[in-house]
């Protein structure tokens, strides 16, 4: 697992390094300027992919949390911690880019809208889950408790998606179920490129962080063994 994740991390990081400038070119040059909102709409090509990546990380978090509880292999816990941290990073990106876009588009930085509030809630919960892991005095306990929270948080993400339909806020509907999107073809292409590149970036960051955490836990295990040997 160690070597293959390292390779996957390196390959995706390489692709993301090439991809991100291309995605930026697509977002800033290739895509046409939106008629009503103007240039500020280009944030959309970063905002939406970041949101998608944070959801993807939450899916990894859910799977890793369930697998840890089922198998008790600490490597799954390391992966779920890496997924939590990466999800937190992209969630923060979404929350930073959102208001910058919302101010000119809606005339307000922040509004009572389901997906906004749910994303903020997701961010708070991700931080809380990292805190719980840190507060626990044993590694196993922290891993177990964080896994429980991981499952709860991932279900919350599902509710975030559903929430838009239930509360019918003013968040723009990019993908209409069954119908044609309202995007121009160039815009869709720029969005697609952005999504692919952000996903690559997300995966590479997650696996790099995973490797970092693995090295951390192994060095801690060695230190514990040395301490025991000395006393």
């Amino acid at each position, binding site marked *: 697992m160690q070597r293959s994740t390292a390779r996957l991390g390196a390959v995706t990081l390489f692709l993301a390094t090439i991809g991100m400038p291309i995605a930026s070119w697509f977002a800033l040059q290739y895509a046409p300027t939106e008629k009503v909102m103007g240039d500020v709409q280009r944030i959309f090509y970063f905002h939406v992919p970041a949101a998608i990546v944070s959801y993807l990380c939450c899916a990894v978090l859910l799977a890793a949390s369930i697998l840890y509880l089922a198998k008790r292999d600490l490597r799954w816990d390391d992966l779920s911690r890496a997924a939590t941290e990466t999800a937190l990073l992209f969630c923060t990106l979404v929350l930073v880019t959102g208001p910058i876009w919302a101010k000119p588009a809606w005339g307000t930085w922040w509004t009572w809208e389901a997906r906004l509030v749910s994303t903020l809630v997701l961010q708070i919960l991700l931080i809380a889950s990292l805190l719980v892991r840190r507060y626990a005095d044993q590694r196993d306990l922290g891993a177990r*408790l964080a896994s429980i929270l991981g499952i709860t948080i991932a279900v919350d993400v599902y*509710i975030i998606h559903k929430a838009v339909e239930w509360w019918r806020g003013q968040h723009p509907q990019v993908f209409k179920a069954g119908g044609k999107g309202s995007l121009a073809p160039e815009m869709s292409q720029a969005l697609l490129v952005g999504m692919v590149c952000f996903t690559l970036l997300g995966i590479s960051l997650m696996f790099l962080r995973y490797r970092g955490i693995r090295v951390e836990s192994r060095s801690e295990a060695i230190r514990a063994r040395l301490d025991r040997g000395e006393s």
Partner: protein
Amino acid sequence: MSLKGPSIIRATWALFKKDLQLELRTWDTISSSLIFSLVVLLVYQFTLGVETIREIGAHRVVPGVLWLAIGFASVVGITRSMEVERQGETLTGLFRSPASRATLFLGKFLANGVKLLILELCLVALTVLFFNLPLSAITPRLALILLLGTVGLCELGTLFGAIVLRVGRGEALLATLLLPTATPLLLASIHATAEQFKPTASGDSNWLVLLFGFDLLYFFIALATFEFALEE
């Protein structure tokens, strides 16, 4: 996790009775969370003022304030019910008993729920008093909304209470975990209550169905993961 026959009902009942007996002897949890939520109600009433509330319309203000007070009360109450086990060092006893972890969850959840419902009775009466609501707002439907909202809060609260008990950070951590997670539940409860407090109630039951759905979802998540939180 074994959920066999009537033994689980007996064990759950025993645990529920133990928690409630403890409460009835001291009234510790209910009184402390009641005073706390009373302060929340008063602070809102004081800062908003009677005039503003009348202008905005009580049905727009009161449901949020009421559920906020209930949410805070649940944090105080649930932390207290878990703290009792830690202070008395009775957790090990509970672990050693033949009762399964599912039973522990059910017993704690029911006891927390009943305590919170008793508190809500007082809280609703005080809300009517402070916010000058018509008595006609209190209907069986409001009782159902309170019941469904409380069930959801206590399911999540009992699960997170166990987590907080294990890492020992008290109310602050429980509030950080419980209140954001329960946002959809609180929103549905607030909307349903607002429908109830409107001058002309529309009888829309969508929010009630949603509340029921959340309760079911949280119940299964909490029941499935509770045993991992209490594992030694």
